[in-house]
Each structure stands twice: as C-alpha cells, then as structure tokens.
C-alpha cells in the first residue's frame, strides 16, 4: 500500500480517490540530484519496449503475454546465494516500473549457518501489483528454489499449480542429504502439483560468464543474477535498473560487474529461447495518486523521520545506539547523515545509549535511542529516570521474537506490555506504533512532537517486518510538513526564582537549558516536590506527583491520527490491531466485507494513551477480534480497559499474518467455531508462513 508521507496515512477515506492517475501516462524516472549527472544520458524505457541501449537485449515479448493484476514471487536459497540482493533488485525494478509493492525479507539469524542446511535458508518475497495491496502476499505464484533446503522450507507457500523454478545443479546426493531428502523431489512425483521448471543454473551461469576473467568460484556467485534475469523475463521487467546497479556497485571491479551483467542477461535470454515456458506475464503499473514515489523500508523511514524531525524542530539530532538486530540499520543510516549535522553515538551498551540520549535531551537536543526487545529490558531503569526528570527522549523498539535472545531476525509484537509496564513504580510512557514501513516516517516525527510538547520519553514501536519490509512511498513535500515548535524559557517563572516543575496547560514542565543564566536548577531520579522540583519524600506530595505524571500522559492529544479506520463504525465484527499487522488486517477486513460480513477494522497508532473514540467504537460491534503476533497483549489491555469480551487471534511464529488467516479467524469467531481453529494450528512447522498459522482463544 502506498503511503502519503506528510503525516496522514493513506488509508480508507484518508486520501483522495486514486482514480485520477492516468494509466497511460509515461513513467519517468526522476533520480535525485546526486545521481542526475551520472545517468543524464541514460533515459530508459521500460518493459516490452525496445531499449536504446545497444548493449542489452531487445526486449520484445517472445511468447504470449498474460496480464495479471498481481503476483507474489519468492526467491529462496542458501544465505550465501544472494537471495536478498536478487529480491531487492526485483523490488526496486518493480517499484520504478510503477507497481504497488510489499516485501518480506526472511533471513536466518546466523551470518553463516552451515551451507545447504534448512537453518541456512534465506528468502525474499515480493508482492507486486497493479492494484492497491497491503501485504507481501499470502501464497506464492512463483518460487525460485536455489537448493533442496530452500525447496523444502518454502514449497508449502507455493500455490497449487504455481511456477516452481529450481536450480537442478544443486540437487546432488550431498545437497539432498543436508536438506533431509532421501530421494530427490525432482525425481519422484512429489512436485506434480506445480509447474516445475528445472534449470541448470550453475552450468548456465558458468557458461555465460566464462570469458569474464573471473575464477569458477566467483562466477558461481553470480547465479543469483541468472535467476533474477530469468524471473525478469518471466514478468517482462527491464534489466536496466539492475545493470546500472551492478555497474555502480562494482565500479572498481569491472570483471565482477561484467560477470554479473552477463549472468543477468543470460538468465533473461534463457527464458526467451528455452522451451520451458509457454507464456510470459505482465503486471501493469498501479494507479497510484500522482506524485513522486520511492521505495522505502521501515528502518529507512525511521531514520529519515528522525532527520526530518530535527529539521522541523530546528534542533540537533543525537542518536545513541548499541548495535542490535533488527535496529542497527537506523544507526547506519543516521551515521551517514553527518552533513545534516546529525550526531550518532555508538554506545558501549544499551544503558549507555539511552543515558546519552537523555543527557543530550537535558542539553536541549533531540535525543533518541534505538534497539530491540532485549535492549528495552536493559534501558528500563533509565526510561524511569526520564519519566521522573520529565525530559524528552525517543526510544525506538524494533521488536523481534523473544523472550531473551529469541529470534533476532524474525518479527513479533511481544514487547507491548514490556514497553507499557516494564519499569519500577508507576511509570507512564506514551507509546506510538507504526502501521507500515512508510508510516515509520510520520510516526517517528509524531514521537518527537509529543516528547518535546509534553516533556516525556516516548516509545516508538516498530517490528522486524515493518523494519525490513518495503513499500512505495509518496515522498512528502518538505515545505508542507508541520513544524515542531519548541520554546525554552529564558526568564524566571516565579517571584521565588525558577521553578523547574511548574507546569503549562499540557502539564508539561519547562525545558530550561543549561547555559541559561538565572535558571540554574538540579534534576534527578528522587521524587520531586511539586513546582520547585526539590527532593521531597512527603507522602501526599508523592501521591500527587504520581497522579500528575499519569494525568499528563493520559491527556496527550495525538498530532496525527491516533487510529486508522477501515469500514463503517458499526457492524458485526470489529478487528482491532496495532503495528505491522495493519496491512493484513485491512486486507482481511475488505475481503470479509466482500464475503458479506459486516466487518470493520481499527488500527491503533497510539497504544498509550489509547484513542478516546475507541471505547465507543467497540460498543458498536457484536464481536471484537484482536489479531496479534503475540499471545494476546493488546487483548488483555482492552479487556481490562473496556470490559469487552474481545477474542484474540494469535500467532507467534516469527512471521506476519496472512490475509487468509485473519479472514478464517474472523469467520471462525462469527460461527462460534473457536476450538476448531485452535486444533488446526501446526506445532513444529518448518514452513515460514503456512496457513493456518494462528490460534484463536
């Protein structure tokens, strides 16, 4: 789903109709200024057209072309096979082509799991479409399996009758053994339900790049490009974006660039000339609202949102972090933004990271830290200090599978209760969750806006799926983004001197900066006397302060939408979600509506405070279903808060929901078939996303 960038989520009713987009208008590429010069003379024309690049193939559909509204493809292979790169390239090309896209990278936690084993399989799923889409797709139309392990772990996601491309050169006895096959699945009847296409990718890559000057081992590493070329042919995609990428990436290694380009083209030619395929497919571009688009992942959008917030607030950003999967990319991105005067601090540990962020906030900067669940556990005490000292700081939690080290590269939504309650004392913190990769941009700006307006730490929740997944993003016009206004006092606020805990209408205390003459004051973690901020242990004062801090957070008014709504505000079933499940829940709700169910969805961007209108909305529905990638954390909160008999649809497999799972869950609930669904949940499933993967309880 494409997202409007300027704070409002492109959601049901939130944006103008998309039908204005002219489907026949030519697609032009507007590279950023930095790249404009490099590619000024390289205007390219897309798909099924004749290119003006004489070096590359003439792309004329050589076989009958079938038009499809949308397609889901997964590249799967060993971690060393370059599947993430192949997937990213396919995504970039499809995005530039004008499709709506949604991706799901899925890779092992170990950098080098034993080659060829099930644990070492790395996959990248892309859903590209000519219509609005919200998820990376439930079932695969095509699967590329580079070895037996990839075949075994991914086959279950392939639609029956789907295209299955395998690298038959990787199916020797030893490869089969590592994947636990006794007999080759290529030889028995087990793949009969699919359109099996056997391609000797190793041999063909070797032949294609034999004159590149590279050794056999290096040539072998180009086989992902061969596979990519073949898939490009199958879906009529242009080679130029990837050829250009190869050229730039290996500018200093022309032989490597040459071999990769040869492999890519060879894959493409192979599709054209081999008799393996009887037809080609095309997925026309999507009708998106007019404007400038780019592809963006959640971590990218988070980093960009932080830089934007610093510009909008006219404040230095100080981002302090300790490397941790899957949050480290935010640190990398911000470290490269030194020309925006961003300061990044790679701390010695998680505690130091938040300490430095709070220290920077005390000094008047926009302090932020980013981590994942285990890091939040370590930062808890310091978050409490920020609550007590009422200093602004943004804490990013890119959730992953837990507990403990858990599943570092897999997604989960199981930190909700931790971020809300995982601290000593009555310690309220606002919590904002991004609904999609691109929404991270607006949501993190919102987090800074609230942190500075209310003088409070704010927790920003992302997750592995949101962080690494990509979608098209309608780039916002910077001049239209709302400024973040911040005022620092320069004068004493009382006759008796400066009162650091005197509050404004939002119950926020003044953000007085060191360096301001006359406002010298001391803050700390001991209980504060109301108004003066002096250390105070009196019983009545303590209760008053506990209630004041709670009231301040409870009274927060969101700057952007507190929740996103799909469907009418009354009906039979309301699906309530939060975070990265937005796309799947929304798509499921639309499907339920098509099936005649009076279903609506409401997606919370604010987990604390909960949107005010939520209580009434819940009352308008007969049933409430809460799909979550945990065992029912939001459900527990809403049951407590609204005394509603909400049901949970819960999945903790490290994988996002499929649309189908949610539709089934809602139908099961409406038909009173709760236990039947539970029984269906597979237990020791090696398939990353196989329906039905969730339980209702």
């Amino acid at each position, binding site marked *: 789903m494409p997202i409007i*960038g300027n704070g409002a989520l492109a959601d049901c009713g939130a944006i103008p109709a998309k039908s204005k*987009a002219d489907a026949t*208008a030519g*697609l032009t*590429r*507007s*590279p*950023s200024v930095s790249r404009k010069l490099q590619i000024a003379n390289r205007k390219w024309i897309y798909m099924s057209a004749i290119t003006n690049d004489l070096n590359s193939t003439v792309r004329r559909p050589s076989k009958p072309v079938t038009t499809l509204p949308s397609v889901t493809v997964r590249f799967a292979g060993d971690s060393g096979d370059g599947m993430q790169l192949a997937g990213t390239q396919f995504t970039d090309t499809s*995005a*530039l082509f*004008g499709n709506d896209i949604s991706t799901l990278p899925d890779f092992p936690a170990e950098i080098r799991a034993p080659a060829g084993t099930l644990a070492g399989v790395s996959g990248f799923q892309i859903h590209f479409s000519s219509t609005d889409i919200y998820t990376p797709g439930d079932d695969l139309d095509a699967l590329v399996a580079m070895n037996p392990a990839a075949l075994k772990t991914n086959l279950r996601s392939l639609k029956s009758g789907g295209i299955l491309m395998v690298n038959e050169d990787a199916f020797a006895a030893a490869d089969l053994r590592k994947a636990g096959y006794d007999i080759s699945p290529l030889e028995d009847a087990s793949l009969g339900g699919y359109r099996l296409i056997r391609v000797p990718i190793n041999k063909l890559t070797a032949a294609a790049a034999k004159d590149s000057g590279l050794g056999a081992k290096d040539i072998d590493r180009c086989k992902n490009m061969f596979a990519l070329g073949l898939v490009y042919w199958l879906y009529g995609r242009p080679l130029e*974006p990837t050829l250009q990428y190869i050229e730039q990436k290996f500018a200093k290694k022309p032989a490597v660039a040459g071999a990769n380009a040869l492999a890519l083209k060879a894959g493409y030619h192979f599709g054209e000339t081999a008799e393996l395929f009887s037809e080609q497919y095309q997925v026309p571009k999507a009708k998106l*609202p*007019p*404007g*400038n688009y*780019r592809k*963006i992942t959640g971590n990218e959008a988070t980093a*960009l949102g932080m*830089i934007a917030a610093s*510009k909008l607030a006219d404040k*230095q950003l100080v981002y302090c972090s300790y490397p941790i999967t899957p949050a480290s990319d935010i640190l990398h991105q911000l470290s490269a*933004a*030194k*020309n*925006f*005067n961003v*300061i990044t*601090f790679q701390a*010695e*540990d998680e*505690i*130091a990271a938040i*300490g*430095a962020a*709070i*220290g*920077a*906030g*005390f*000094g*008047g*900067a926009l*302090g932020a830290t980013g981590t994942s669940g285990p890091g939040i556990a370590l930062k808890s*005490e*310091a978050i409490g*200090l920020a609550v007590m000292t009422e200093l602004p700081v943004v804490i990013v939690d890119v959730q992953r599978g837990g507990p403990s080290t858990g599943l570092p590269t897999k997604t989960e939504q199981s930190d909700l209760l931790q971020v809300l309650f995982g601290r000593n004392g009555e310690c309220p913190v606002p919590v904002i969750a991004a609904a999609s990769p691109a929404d991270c941009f607006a949501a993190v700006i919102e987090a800074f806006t609230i942190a500075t307006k209310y003088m409070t730490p704010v927790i920003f929740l992302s997750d592995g799926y949101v962080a690494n997944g990509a979608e098209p993003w309608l*780039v916002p016009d*910077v001049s239209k983004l709302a400024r973040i206004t911040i005022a620092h006092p320069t004068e004493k606020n009382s006759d008796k001197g400066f009162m650091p805990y005197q509050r404004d209408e939002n119950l926020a205390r003044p953000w007085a900066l*060191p*360096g301001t*003459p006359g*406002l*010298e004051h*001391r*803050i*700390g*973690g001991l209980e504060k006397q109301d108004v003066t901020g*002096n*250390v105070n242990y009196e019983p009545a004062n303590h209760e008053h302060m506990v209630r004041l801090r709670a009231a301040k957070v409870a009274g927060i008014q969101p700057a952007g939408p507190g929740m996103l709504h799909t469907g009418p505000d009354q009906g039979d079933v309301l699906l309530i979600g939060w975070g990265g499940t937005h796309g799947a829940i929304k798509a499921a709700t639309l499907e339920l509506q098509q099936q005649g169910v009076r279903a609506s969805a409401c997606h919370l961007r604010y987990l604390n405070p909960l949107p005010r209108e939520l209580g009434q909305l819940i009352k308008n529905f007969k049933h409430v279903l809460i799909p979550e990638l945990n065992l029912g954390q939001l459900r527990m909160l809403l049951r407590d808060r609204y005394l509603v008999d909400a049901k949970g649809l819960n999945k903790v497999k490290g994988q996002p929901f499929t649309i189908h799972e949610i539709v089934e869950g809602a139908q099961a609930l409406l038909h009173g078939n709760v236990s039947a669904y539970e029984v269906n949940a597979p237990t020791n499933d090696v398939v990353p996303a196989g329906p039905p993967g969730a339980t209702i309880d």
Partner: protein
Amino acid sequence: MSLPPTQPLTVLKPADFASDQEVRWCPGCGDYAILAQMKKVCAKLGMDRSKTVFVSGIGCSSRFPYYMNTYGFHSIHGRAPTFATGLKLARPDLNVWMVTGDGDALSIGGNHFMHLVRRNVDIKVLLFNNRIYGLTKGQYSPTSEHGKKTKSTPMGAPEYPIRPISIAIGAEASFAARAIDVDMKHLEYVLERAAAHKGTAFVEIYQNCNIFNDGAYDYAVDKSTRSDNVVYLEHGKPLIFGKENSKGIRLHALTPEVVDTKIVSADDLLIHDEKAPEPSLAFLLSRMRYPDFPEPLGVFRAVDHEAYGDTVRQQNRDAIAGQGEGDLQSLLNGEETWSVS
C-alpha cells in the same frame, strides 16, 4: 554617541556556588571538605554558574550536584558517564563535571567508566574513594582491602581491590590524579589542574567515611605518619618523601624501590614525567600502595589527546564541507524516485 552602561563585573565568591539546599552528609564526612574546595576553585577560576553542570550517579558522593548552585543532574547508579557524555556531545559549550564514588564508578558503572575515559570525553571526573558503601550502610566496595570485615563480609572480603588510577590508566586516561579530602591546598591544586585539562580529567579523592570506614586513610593523613606514607608527584622532579626528605623512589629494572637519599643521589631517583607518551610509568606509580610504598598524590599523567566531542564535531564539519549542507527534500527523495502523473 553615549557610552554603553558599564556592567559591574560580578566576581563570584565560593558561597555564590552554594545552592539553597541543606547539605545532608553525616557530620564529619570528608565530602564536606571536597564540596568546600570545589566551590573555592569554581570561584577562583571564575566559572560561569549557568554554563557549569554537575552530573552524578548514586551514592553519598552523588548528592553533590544538589549542593551546587549550577545546573545539575543526579542520575542513576553507575550511569553518570552516559548522561554526561550525551550532554557534552549535544552541548560542547558546557563545563561538565561528574561526581562519583568507588561503588558507583567501579562496580555498577565499571563499563561506562572505562568507556568514558577511553573516549576522552571532555568531562572532569571526581571519584570520591571511601573504600566502602556508605549510602547502603556499610558493605565492602571494589576498593575495600582484601579481608575487610563489613556487614556483608563478616569473615572478611574474599576479593582483591582494584585501584581506580590503574583502571583509568588502563583505559587510556589522558589525565589521572589523586588528592586527599583534608589536604585542602593540594586538593585545590589538583582540581585546578583537572579544570584546565581538555579531555577526561580523572581525579581520585581519598575521602573519609567517618561512619562506616573511619580512619581508612589515617596513614596518609595523620601528621606523625603521613610523610612516610605519601609522596607528592611533581613533573620533572625526583620522587622524594619522608621526614626531612630522607627517602626516595628508585627504579630497579621495572620495580620501584625505596632508597635512602643520603646514599642515593637525586639524579638516580625516579624522575616524574606526567607527559610521558607511554602510560607505563604512571601505571607503575598507581601500583605503589601503603604499607610497602608511599602512595603518590598529584598528577600521574596529563597528556594531550583530542577530546571525543571535538572529533565527532569535526567529522560533521568535514561532511558538510565535502557534501554541502544536507537538503531534506533530496534526502527524502532518495537515490531513485519515479513520478506518477
């Protein structure tokens, strides 16, 4: 043209650096003397109250910021270096001091302490070493002697102490010094030296906890014994101590030894060099410990290293000079955009 009104130059006195908060250390605690000296140095050096920040962790010593009429941040146990680092990164214009104790800096905060020193963040660190946990009422600390009997070690501490200056030097300290709470003049000198240092200036201050570890430093304070038990370090001067300067320290291979200055000439004694690029000598001095050796007081090491924040800010300036100031719109556009009309 009229002359601008002349502003009387306000000269602050030590008392001007006192906050309105009642000081709540135990009567007789060594912390009082350190507080008094600090205020004196602040006044003497003409520090700007509004630009000075005291950051602390948790412990008796960490109450220090509440008593200074400057900006202050009393943070959480062991983590003061992290808040101070973030503050100094955001605000290089501020004069940041950190007050900590032996438990705060070397036990719960050992990791942060090491990295603060290693980075050479431009912060002055005062470690009040009383070799005991005072605030929690008398457990042994990482600097308590082996065998020390405390509430949590009724049969004696089974651990060996660490030496704060050894730790600081091991962590590449650019400045390390030691003083004693009651030796006012010398403490003042050391604080002034710390204030003048660019980078992390680490000062260990022997501090008497008269409630839980009274007399821990009697050997170094008592008039009758002190001259035999401490040696004052002076750059470029031989290490001489004892009544009537009767003793000196000589280096025998890599080991220091106490010699009689009537027999060994001053030229053969160990000459202190606080600017030595290699920290080996400073480290060796940090190992000298009562009762085998006099304990050195003064500046062990003071070398020039670029401070952390300066490097960080220079990188930003270089990036801006090289790439031009970042333009948000083109950053958001990214490398590749496509337009839909």
